[in-house]
C-alpha cells in the first residue's frame, strides 16, 4: 500500500483527525492569546497581586511535563471532583491553561521591560495619550511579542498530539489506528510528519522573518 492508496482508503478518517486537531488548536490558540494577553497586561499593571500570582502558576506549570498535567486533569482531578468530562474538553482546557500562562509571561515581561524613556519622549513632545499608546507603545510591544508568541503557538500546536493519550481522536490517534490496521508505519508517520511540517515550518519562518524585520535596535534603552 503506497501513500496514494492509504490516502484514498483512509483519507476520510485522516481528515476527521485533522479536523479535530485543528479545532483543538484553534481553541487553544484563541483562548491562550486572548486570555493570556489580558492576564499578562493585568500582571504588568498589578505586579504584586496578579503578576506574582500568575508567575507562581507559570513556574509550577513549567516544572510539570505537559503530558503529566494532562493526565492529572483527566484522571485524578475528575475522580476527586466526581465528574466525567469529555476528553476533548479536558485536552482543550489543559492545553489552553498552558498556553494562557506562557502567553501571559511573554506579554507581562514585554510590558514590564518596555523602555519607559520612549514614553517620556512622547510626553515631552506633547503627544496625546491615545497616540502614545497606539503609535508608539503598541507597535513596539507587538514587534517585541509577536515572534515569541508565534513560537509558543507552534509549541502548543505540537502538544495537541498528547490529546491522543486520553482518547481524543485527533490526527495522531487516527494515524495510530490506521497503522494498527494496515501496518505501514513509514508511509503513515511520514504523512503525519509532512502535515506537521506543513503547518509549523511556515509559522516558524514567519516568526523568524518578523524577528529580523521588526526587532530593531533597542540599544537606546
Amino acid at each position, binding site marked *: 500500500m503506497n501513500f496514494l492508496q492509504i490516502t484514498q482508503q483512509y483519507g476520510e478518517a485522516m481528515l476527521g483527525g485533522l479536523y479535530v486537531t485543528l479545532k483543538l488548536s484553534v481553541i487553544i490558540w484563541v483562548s491562550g492569546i486572548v486570555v493570556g494577553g489580558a492576564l499578562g497586561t493585568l500582571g504588568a499593571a498589578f505586579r504584586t497581586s496578579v503578576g506574582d500570582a500568575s508567575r507562581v502558576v507559570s513556574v509550577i506549570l513549567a516544572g510539570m511535563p505537559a503530558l503529566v498535567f494532562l493526565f492529572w486533569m483527566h484522571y485524578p482531578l475528575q475522580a476527586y471532583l466526581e465528574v466525567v468530562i469529555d476528553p476533548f474538553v479536558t485536552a482543550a482546557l489543559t492545553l489552553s491553561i498552558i498556553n494562557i500562562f506562557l502567553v501571559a509571561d511573554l506579554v507581562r515581561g514585554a510590558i514590564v521591560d518596555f*523602555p519607559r*524613556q*520612549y514614553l*517620556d*519622549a*512622547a*510626553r*515631552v*513632545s*506633547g*503627544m*496625546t*495619550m491615545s*497616540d*502614545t499608546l497606539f*503609535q*508608539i507603545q503598541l*507597535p*513596539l510591544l507587538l*514587534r517585541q511579542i509577536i515572534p515569541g508568541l508565534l513560537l509558543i503557538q507552534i509549541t502548543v500546536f505540537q502538544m495537541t498530539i498528547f490529546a491522543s493519550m486520553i482518547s481524543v481522536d485527533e490526527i495522531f490517534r487516527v494515524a495510530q489506528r490506521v497503522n494498527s490496521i494496515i501496518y505501514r508505519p513509514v508511509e503513515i508517520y511520514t504523512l503525519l510528519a509532512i502535515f506537521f511540517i506543513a503547518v509549523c515550518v511556515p509559522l516558524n519562518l514567519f516568526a523568524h522573518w518578523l524577528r529580523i524585520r*521588526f526587532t*530593531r*535596535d*533597542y*540599544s*537606546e*534603552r
Partner: protein
Amino acid sequence: MLKGLKIRKSFGEVEILHGIDIQIEPGTITTIIGPSGSGKSTLLRSLALLDPPTSGSVVIDGEEMIFPRDTPVPANFAWPRLTVVFQQLFLWPHLTLRQNAVLPLRSRGISSPEDRVNQIIHDFGIAGLADRFPNEVSLGQRQLGAIVRALALQPRYLLLDEITSALDVEYVAMILERLKTLREEGVALLLISHLIDFARRSADQIVFLDGGTLVEQGTPAILDNPESSRLERFLGLVLEAR
C-alpha cells in the same frame, strides 16, 4: 521664564538634589557643568517635570507647580513648549528619523507637519538620512534626528542633555550655530555638557553642580576665574584630562 525654586529630589532615602534654585531666561543659554553623579541630569528631569521634584516648585511663564502634590502634573502644563533632547535620545526605533519628528506634530493636530520637519531636516543637511530608521544611522546622526524632533515642536524652553557627546567637531559647530539662532529667536536653552569649551563659547550663564548642590553660577567668566575651590579643582581635572 523657567524657574526651579528650592528643588529637592530624593530616590528612596537618598537625596540627590539639595534645594537648588535656578532661573533660565528666554533668549539665553544656560549650561550646567559638574562631575558625574553631581545631579545634572536629575535636575534637568526635575525641571522638565519628568521626575517631578520631591519638594520645591517649578515655574514656567509665571505658572507655578508646587511639590509635593497629590495629583500628577497635567500633560499640558509644560509640554511641548518645554521639551527635552535626552542624552540617550530615545528616538522611536520603529519610525524613520522623519517620522519621529512628524508624529508628535500630527498628534497635536498641526497642519502640514511634513513641511515644518522637512525645512529643519534641510537646514541640518540630513535630507539623505531622514527616511532611515534610527538603527540605520550613526549615533551622531541619531543625535541630529533627536534635535530635529525637538526643534520641530518649536519649543520656548529646550533642555538638552549631553547632546554633543557623540558628535564630531563639524556637527558640534553646526549645533552651536543652531542653538545661537534659537537664542536669538527668544528660546530659553538649558544644556548639560561636559565640554568646557563648548560651554564657554555657547553659554550666557554657567551653573556648576556638585553633590546635588549648586556650588557656583555666573557668566562664562567663572570658568577662567572660579570663586569656589571646588569648581577650580574640577576645571583643573578637566584640563588634565585633555
